[in-house]
């Protein structure tokens, strides 16, 4: 029997695809050292980077596996947002700007993959902050969790004899009504004339009005800015500012200007928040989990492969090749999408390996039946794949339904939104689709090519 041309083409495509996946899954650097008698050869191979440039579209995928907090280590904080004092119509904007402010605060840490997410639980609003790699929970909680209160106080006129005994708080005792909720943002700017750094402030419309009043009232006097009752700066008002945009200049260098902006931004929390959950996972624990999970996965995989060969012989061997292709494609997709791997995610992956084999078992049992009924091997194979397809389709649709309920793609608030359960659902979901592809399409074509002599 000859193999049709299309089958051969599919066969080579599968091989090519597997090879590409294999390359993507290589570590980014592979040092090779050869020392054998007189040969001394050392070379470090680098994984090719997959840079594409099509027109203005730049693709430079970072092909590293991403690990979630439970594996990489880090801190995760969940805050409850106190919305009791906010007006209902302002709430969406207040929440968004809260999120933005927290993100700015988090960025002070300089963590690349931090994430800030809002979620809703019935009437409650939650804010989840993930800080991978952070090992100092206290400073994180302090920076993010404490509702810093920003106030603007005008300088009072104090009689000359009282000046000596007056404290700072006596001097700046006139509340301008401005506070952190009026500040939209603060940034570092460079003065075009003096080329010295200064700090710019931008107020919202209500804040702009108050600021105009304050600047006219305290013209040529000072306004102190307090962060949690601690004065951080007290610039002299030089002009009346009507548009809500102000700059503070003075003896700033870039560093102190940046520090002041950070403090000002940190003070501008529109809604109070309080912490309800904190998690910290050390990096060593995470590494331990990864290595244990990977070891368990490999041992399990080896056992499954032995089981398949023991049960189905040559067919099992082909199914195992399909399984390896399955593993390669899955890992490649984890890198490309990218999927953030958590421990439940690894479990989902391990479980989906079991399910990938299921399609093959269904098919092979079907083939055996047909062979028992006296069909020739090749015909039995095609019938087996055809008949088993119905069962595979229905059974996997059911798994997809549950995985979707777990993944909760529409973010329904009555269903789970936690990263743990979702991490599991996403790997399970991916696993089902890829396993249908490898278990049915790949093994079928491998069998068509490899088993041509078997008739």
């Amino acid at each position, binding site marked *: 029997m000859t193999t049709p041309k299309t089958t051969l083409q599919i066969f080579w495509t599968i091989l090519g695809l597997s090879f590409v996946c294999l390359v993507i899954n290589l570590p980014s650097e592979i040092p090779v050292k050869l020392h054998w008698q007189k040969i001394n050869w050392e070379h470090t191979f680098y994984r090719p980077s997959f840079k594409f440039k099509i027109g203005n579209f730049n693709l430079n995928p970072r092909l590293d596996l991403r690990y979630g907090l439970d594996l990489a280590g880090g801190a995760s904080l969940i805050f409850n947002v106190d919305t009791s004092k906010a007006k209902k119509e302002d709430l969406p904007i207040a929440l968004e700007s809260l999120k933005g402010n927290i993100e700015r605060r988090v960025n002070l840490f300089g963590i690349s993959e931090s994430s800030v997410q809002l979620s809703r639980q019935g009437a409650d609003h939650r804010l989840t902050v993930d800080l991978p790699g952070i090992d100092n929970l206290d400073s994180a909680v302090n920076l993010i969790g404490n509702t810093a209160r920003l106030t603007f106080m005008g300088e009072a006129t104090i009689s000359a004899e009282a000046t000596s005994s007056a404290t700072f708080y006596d001097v700046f005792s006139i509340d301008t009504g401005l506070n952190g909720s009026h500040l939209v943002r603060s940034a570092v700017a460079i003065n075009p004339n003096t080329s010295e750094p200064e700090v710019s402030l931008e107020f919202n419309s209500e804040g702009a009005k108050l600021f105009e009043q304050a600047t006219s009232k305290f013209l040529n006097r000072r306004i102190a800015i307090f962060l949690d009752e601690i004065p951080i700066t007290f610039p002299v008002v030089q002009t009346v500012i009507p548009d809500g945009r102000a700059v503070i200049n003075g003896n700033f260098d870039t560093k102190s200007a940046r520090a002041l902006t950070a403090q000002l931004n940190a003070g501008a929390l529109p809604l109070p928040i309080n912490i309800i959950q904190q998690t910290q996972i050390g990096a060593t624990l995470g590494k331990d989990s990864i290595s244990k999970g990977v070891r368990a*996965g490999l041992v*399990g995989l080896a056992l499954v492969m032995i089981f398949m060969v023991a049960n189905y012989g040559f067919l099992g061997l082909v199914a195992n090749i399909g399984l390896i292709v399955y593993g390669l494609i899955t890992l490649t997709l984890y890198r490309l999408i990218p999927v953030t791997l958590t421990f439940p995610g690894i479990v989902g992956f*391990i479980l989906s390996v079991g399910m990938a084999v299921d399609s093959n*078992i269904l098919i092979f049992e079907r083939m055996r039946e047909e062979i028992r009924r006296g069909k020739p091997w090749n015909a039995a194979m095609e019938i087996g794949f055809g008949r088993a397809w119905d069962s595979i389709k*229905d059974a996997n649709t*059911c798994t997809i339904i549950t995985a979707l309920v777990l993944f909760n793609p529409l973010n329904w608030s009555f269903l789970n939104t936690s990263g743990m359960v979702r991490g599991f659902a996403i790997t399970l979901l991916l696993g089902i689709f890829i396993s249908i592809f490898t278990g049915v399409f790949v093994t079928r074509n491998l069998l068509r090519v490899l088993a041509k002599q078997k008739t």
Partner: protein
Amino acid sequence: MNFMKFRPLFLAISSTMILVSLFSIFKWGFRPSIDFAGGSVWEIKTPNLSDQSKITIVFDDQKIPLSSVSPAGDRQYLLKFANIDQAQKKSLEEALKKVDTDFSELRFETLGPTLGKELLRKTIAAIILSSLALLLFIGRRFRDFSFGASAVLAMLHDSLILVGAFSLLGHFFGAELDSLFVTAILTTLSASVHDTVVTFDRIRELRRQDYRPDWVDLANRAISEVIVRSFNNSMTIILMLLSLVVLGGQTTRWFAIALLIGVICGTYSSTAVAIPLVLFWKKHRQK
């Protein structure tokens, strides 16, 4: 082979398991992890400390009641206690540093009790939602409502037994109910239905060849044809999970055990619960 003659036996096994589960759930309840009860978990490493009683003494000194100390690897301990604030934690750290200079923190979690209740509510919502979706899907695919209902009932049977088993394991071996367990229940749902649908599918196929089907005979033939597949398939998943139980480490051991119980239950229930239920349904309708 006449599997259906074992129906009384299946009924006896299933009702015993369900009764034991219900008994354990109501009598002993669960051992909730901090995911459900609220509290703190602290995993620490004390390389120079051979005796965990010193840790207990530190906690006693600070007047923070420890609810449990369990070893988690080589000179690593998992401590559980009520919620503490940052100042309390700091003084604990300092006190522990005095006992062991190389003391280090591996993991620290605190959780308010509200999150656990939410999780429970959401899990029930997820079970109801997926039950309804599966009922509709299977009912439509097999053009027979009794198939959908039986599959869903078998699936609920499995999750009830799994929950019961965890109540028992919690009572006797200290297994805790945590958010991973929720994932395990939902996986059991899908694994159970997966298996049931394959058997149903075979019944549907065989039925096409019969004009007036004898349902019992049909069921027996279908089961005989798929039982090897069912067994082999479960074996592969069991092999994967067993390696996870043995090699996967402390934090996910109970999770893997829960999945293991779920998978075994799911394989059993498609033959022993779902099919008999369909037959029961058919018999009733014929009368």
